[in-house]
């Protein structure tokens, strides 16, 4: 099952996602939580703590331009993700490092 949580800034997406992820994990499911926000704070809401949240490398950066030798998503999440409480595996998708990155 794949669930996407969207909404306006400040409406509670991250909090809802974190509680969903931990509740599902407690019921015995294998849960991967993907933070797709370029301002990734899901780790905080999952209870991972500030330093661990800040220290995560984004999957996009981990893959870089090496599309030829792209690994499976499982191996990337295993290598670059982090373990959050209740057995949720957290990974962040992208982080913006460039102030005028991309198009609007």
């Amino acid at each position: 099952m794949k669930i996407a949580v969207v909404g306006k800034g400040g409406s509670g997406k991250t909090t809802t996602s974190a509680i969903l992820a931990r509740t599902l994990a407690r019921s015995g499911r294998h849960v991967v939580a993907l933070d797709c926000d370029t301002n990734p704070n899901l780790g905080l809401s999952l209870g991972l703590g500030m330093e661990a949240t800040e220290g995560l490398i984004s999957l996009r950066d981990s893959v870089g331009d090496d599309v030829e030798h792209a690994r499976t998503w499982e191996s990337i999440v295993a290598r670059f993700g982090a373990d959050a409480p209740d057995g949720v595996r957290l990974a962040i998708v992208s982080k913006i490092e460039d102030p005028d990155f991309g198009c609007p």
Partner: protein
Amino acid sequence: MRVAFVGKGGAGKSVIAGAFCRLLARSSDRPVVAIDSDSMPGLAFSLGVPSTDTMLPPEIVEQVGPDSEREFVLRDGLTALQAVERYAAESADGVRLLQFGKLRGHVRAAGPSQQAFRVVVDGLRGADCHLIGDLPGGTRQPFFGWASFADIIIVVAEATPSSMLAARRLARLARPGGPAEHQRIVAVVNKAVDPADSEHVARFTKLRVVGVVPADPAVWAAERAGVALIDAAPASPAVKAITSLVESIVVEAP
């Protein structure tokens, strides 16, 4: 002066920016142009502009050059400020609102108006007016081109870990190479509940705090009602704090 508001989604950028524009317009002779670079409507509500759909008419720009290297310019004889005065929505106190445009269905549908937005904002660079920008939440394209010519970047932050973390990332993004040296990056603490909140934000973000807006039920009430805070509760603690913010920013601006 040119001021950009940035911060985490929900930190209160639009509410503060809207009241800031209205108060600035009351105290200044120059036109105040509010720029909403967010594709979600926020600033229209906090300015009290009746329509949340106030895009510029695409006809004000024309394409020059071939399609392969096309460029858009303002239609003959029209200056950016004239375009704003003629076509942008106007709030009470005379603030003009420029909106980047909603994303309707397919992004491309709003294309021509968004070109007009870009051309006008770029043309306002040298105009004799105050430019106040409300930038999209979070760190996704936070600086959105035009903020590179803002004099002051105001990072709005609550004294919560996620909000301060976003503020610190934004402060970091704003510094290296990007904005010019004259630019100032400062913080405004929003929804403050404790006298220590200001120090907390200052210590964590390493930004100078230039204003503290208290947590104020009047803000929630105005948001729920969909009306501008400054109209709904002109004597509220939040409006008083934003009044002081305007006064101190006016003094600081180059």
